[in-house]
């Protein structure tokens, strides 16, 4: 293999370490063969393979070789740099070398885990290791860049996750901007009647927290607002928030509610009311709303639609109504961001055979939550859609839109428990009523959850194991007239069943917010196939994201119940608090720099930079990079027509050497083509 190194033989002394990762790597790749083969590279001084390079013994191998054999460069071939780059850089540093004189080859995620073909995997491992060796020879010592952390934080989303995170930080003495899209904070938890399995009143445990948010001096609450843009990086984010015009002057409004009372325009409340109740065109979602100022819904306001009415203006005792109010753009800096944007309920109309939206007495789970809530449209009475008849039989259908390959393959995690809660509430409100729970599997993992299931078994709920095929009003047999017939399989009895009932509740699953992909792009982070935000590591970094300084909490990361959501809100806050108390973080020295004496001053790079990190010097007629703003993306490096911008740690020489290294066994003609 020796004929095609682009680095002079013996220029550097490279130590190469191939990790077995137990059998994760060694089970597929012949590690002995790779480590023996790479010795043929003239720059390689030492080549070893070891069971776990990340263990302290593995790291000591590196340290000792640097000291004893005078290594000048280090290559470890193991897992993804996301896992252990930091570990091995530190080992390199402890050995006495600059940590950037290290390079990592990923032969696990990119190789051994991707195939069962041992021969091919070994060949690829050789190429990857050779590429790393060729590259590391050209590495330069670099110093990390210190970045100060702005102690202010932005929390996006005012549900229980965002409320928890904001309060934790504010109570620790840090300033928080809490941005909420709706007119009030509270989120889904404010809609719910009781919480499982303890049956606490949801509002009773939530509203004190909401009040705390409203009163905490460290929290700037921006309700009816949306994040417009996010610039910058960890420690130094610059945020623009659109504070939508609510047509109410917050300085003057006393939250007396008379505008809402007198407003003549009634509209279905599809948001807080889950479509089961009405609100006015100027409204507060509920009496305990925080902040207490109402929002004027322009789309449904008679004045905005016809130019006449202005009743709210006439009745307002403090002249707080301002139809001319415009959206405000607010700009501020924060050091960290916590996203707690929550979830959407699966839209049961997507399963037309369940009849939601066609058959009046088929209800969604959120509709039922509102109905059974004492502050809901029926005052807590369970009634059919006619608003007066009490149902005698109720079917509760689990897994609507969840565990279903046509919709969402995942389990929504909370539906079994809230369906059990519904059954209990029916028994409580209508002791004579029969309740049928249709389930696929009963999933009740959690403290006190299984016990709650047993309680329901004793309360006399009927449990039918089987997915519901259809809900119809087409009666076929006597006794079915005027009923909703639930057609399902009973897998325990092995029969098909038709069950006539008065009311059906669809336990719809949890989905990512409809605009989660847009939001993830705004914050320059990732979301998964289902639209949930990606955590940095599923086990060990569940609230961190791949973007430093941006954290996630609650159901925006995946379906979650209230305890888990609150735990994540707290975890995200503690991650942020850690960074704030550190005060400074060290950032990768991967930055662009312009060789000013060679710059032609064409200014092509100026507008391309997504971070506005390039300035033009009018006197010298050249451009230069503001290192503090540069994120090392490399756009300018690639675009510079004179080739005078260098990306530290990603220089042309390093990249080309890496490419030559990986293509070591290509025929010579290929190399010739590249030169052309």
């Amino acid at each position: 293999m020796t004929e095609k190194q682009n680095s002079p033989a013996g220029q550097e002394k490279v130590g190469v370490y191939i990790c077995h990762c137990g059998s994760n790597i060694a089970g597929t790749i012949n590690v002995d063969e790779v480590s023996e083969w790479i010795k043929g590279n003239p720059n390689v001084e030492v080549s070893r393979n070891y069971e776990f390079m990340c263990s302290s013994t593995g790291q000591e191998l590196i340290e000792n070789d640097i000291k004893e054999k005078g290594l000048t460069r280090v290559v470890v071939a193991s897992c993804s740099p996301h896992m252990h780059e930091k570990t091995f850089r530190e080992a390199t540093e402890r050995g006495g070398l600059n940590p950037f004189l290290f390079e990592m080859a990923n032969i696990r995620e990119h190789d051994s885990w991707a195939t069962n073909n041992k021969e091919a995997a070994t060949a690829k491992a050789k190429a990857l290791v050779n590429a790393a060796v060729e590259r590391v020879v050209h590495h330069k010592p670099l110093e990390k860049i210190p970045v100060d952390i702005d102690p202010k934080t932005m929390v996006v989303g005012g549900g229980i996750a965002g409320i928890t995170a904001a309060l934790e930080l504010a109570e620790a003495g840090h300033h928080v901007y809490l941005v909420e899209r709706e007119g009030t904070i509270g989120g889904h938890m404010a809609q719910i009647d009781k919480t499982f399995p303890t049956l606490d009143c949801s509002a009773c445990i939530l509203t004190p927290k909401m009040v705390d948010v409203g009163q905490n001096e460290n929290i700037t609450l921006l309700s009816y607002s949306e994040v417009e843009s996010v610039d910058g990086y960890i420690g130094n984010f610059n945020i623009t928030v659109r504070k939508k015009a609510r047509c109410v002057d917050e300085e003057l409004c006393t939250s007396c509610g008379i505008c809402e009372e007198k407003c003549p325009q009634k509209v279905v409340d599809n948001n807080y009311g889950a479509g089961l109740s009405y609100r006015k065109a100027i409204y507060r979602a509920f009496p305990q709303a925080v902040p207490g100022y109402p929002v004027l819904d322009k789309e449904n306001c008679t004045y905005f639609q016809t130019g006449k009415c202005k009743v709210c203006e006439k009745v307002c005792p403090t002249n707080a109504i301002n139809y001319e109010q415009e959206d405000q753009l607010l700009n501020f800096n924060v050091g960290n961001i916590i996203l707690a944007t929550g979830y959407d309920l699966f839209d049961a109309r997507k399963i037309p055979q369940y009849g939601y939206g066609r058959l009046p007495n088929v209800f969604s789970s959120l509709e039922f939550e509102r109905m059974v809530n004492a502050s809901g449209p029926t005052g807590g009475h369970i009634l059919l859609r006619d608003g007066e008849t009490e149902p005698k039989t109720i079917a509760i259908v689990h897994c609507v839109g969840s565990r279903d390959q046509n919709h969402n393959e995942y389990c929504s995690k909370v539906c079994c428990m809230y369906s059990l809660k519904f059954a209990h509430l029916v028994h409580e409100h209508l002791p004579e009523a029969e309740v049928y729970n249709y389930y696929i599997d009963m999933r009740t993992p959690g403290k006190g959850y299984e016990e709650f299931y047993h309680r329901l078994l004793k309360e006399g709920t009927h449990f039918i194991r089987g997915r519901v095929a259809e809900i119809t009003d087409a009666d076929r047999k006597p006794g079915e007239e005027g009923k909703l017939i639930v057609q399902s399989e009973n897998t325990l009895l092995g029969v098909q069943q038709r069950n006539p009932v008065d009311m059906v509740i669809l336990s719809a699953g949890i989905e990512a917010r409809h605009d989660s992909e847009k939001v993830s792009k705004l914050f320059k982070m990732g979301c998964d196939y289902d639209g949930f935000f990606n955590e940095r590591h599923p086990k060990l970094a569940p609230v961190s994201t791949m973007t430093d300084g941006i954290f996630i909490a609650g159901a925006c990361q995946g379906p979650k119940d209230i305890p888990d959501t609150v735990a994540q809100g707290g975890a995200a806050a503690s991650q942020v608090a850690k960074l704030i108390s550190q005060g400074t973080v060290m950032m990768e020295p991967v930055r662009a720099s312009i060789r000013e004496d060679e710059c032609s001053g064409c200014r092509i790079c100026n507008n391309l930079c997504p971070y506005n990190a390039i300035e033009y010097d009018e006197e010298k007629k050249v451009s230069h990079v503001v290192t503090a703003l540069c994120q090392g993306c490399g756009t300018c490096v690639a675009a510079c027509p004179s080739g005078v911008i260098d990306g530290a740690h990603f220089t042309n020489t390093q990249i080309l050497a890496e490419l030559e290294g990986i293509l070591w066994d290509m025929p010579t003609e290929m190399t010739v083509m590249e030169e052309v």
Partner: protein
Amino acid sequence: MKYGYYPGCSLEKNARAYHVSTMAVAEPLGIEFVEVEDWNCCGATEMMAIEKIPAFALISRNLALAAKQNGSTNLVAPCSACYLNLKKADHYLAEDKGLRAKVDTALEAGGLSYQPGTINVQHLLETIAVDIGYDAVEERVVKPLYSLRVAPYYGCLVPRPATMQSFDDPEHPTSLDKILQRLGATVIDYPLKAQCCGGHMTQISEDTALELIRRLLKNAADCEADMIATLCPMCQLNLDAYQDAVNAHFGTDYQIPIVYFTQLMGLAFGIPAKELGFGKEFVSAQPALDKITEEAPKPVRTRGRGKQKAELPMPTQLEER
């Protein structure tokens, strides 16, 4: 637009009205049908159950003939069973290499060959709903079917199976509903619209078939439908010809005419009933057709919406899919 046309055996005889009315509405819709020359039976539902290879070979011969014939790569089958068989054959020939090799041998014996995917098999409903479009249908209407209450009946074959990329929801199709609405008819939300008519059960287990037919008729009657509009010769035959048998068996008195949707389209397009095959049905459609009014009926509030004060609001319908 030019389309290959595969009438199938039914449309030659018992479903003559379907064929005649399809031809009658083709011209105003701008469709030119070119019948596949020398086509043969699709094997209906039985052949496939008896022996797979000859069944697929029989169907594939029609695909091969359609592909050979100059004209269109779209092949329209008005009969649901023909449609499903043709579409199924095209699908499985592409998927199953072993099957394709055997079918190829059979086709070669007749000097034919077929490359799966060449022909795009469509049901007539798909052609009209998707290719022609609801707006174009509405534009041709000169005599709207005002006040006629129609139950749209799709049967079980056309929207299924979903794995073969159905043009409509397999459990709750709506394309026929929309066509009939554009004709001015009052379309009822027919709960059993995609359920089975019994198929050839009438020959094997009459009790089973009669019960299946009874359900469909009872439900249509409960919904106060004046007639059932269908798109399948089998469905039409079972519901129409066996209606007397159902009445005798169950002691009922259903008199619900079963017509092809193309017949109703023709009427709305101003084509005389005689030219649309009306009169061939067992349960006469005439009393129902007499109900058509010149003026649009006053809109009736859909069920469950704001009649009384106490009533809770209904969720809105999902947007047009």
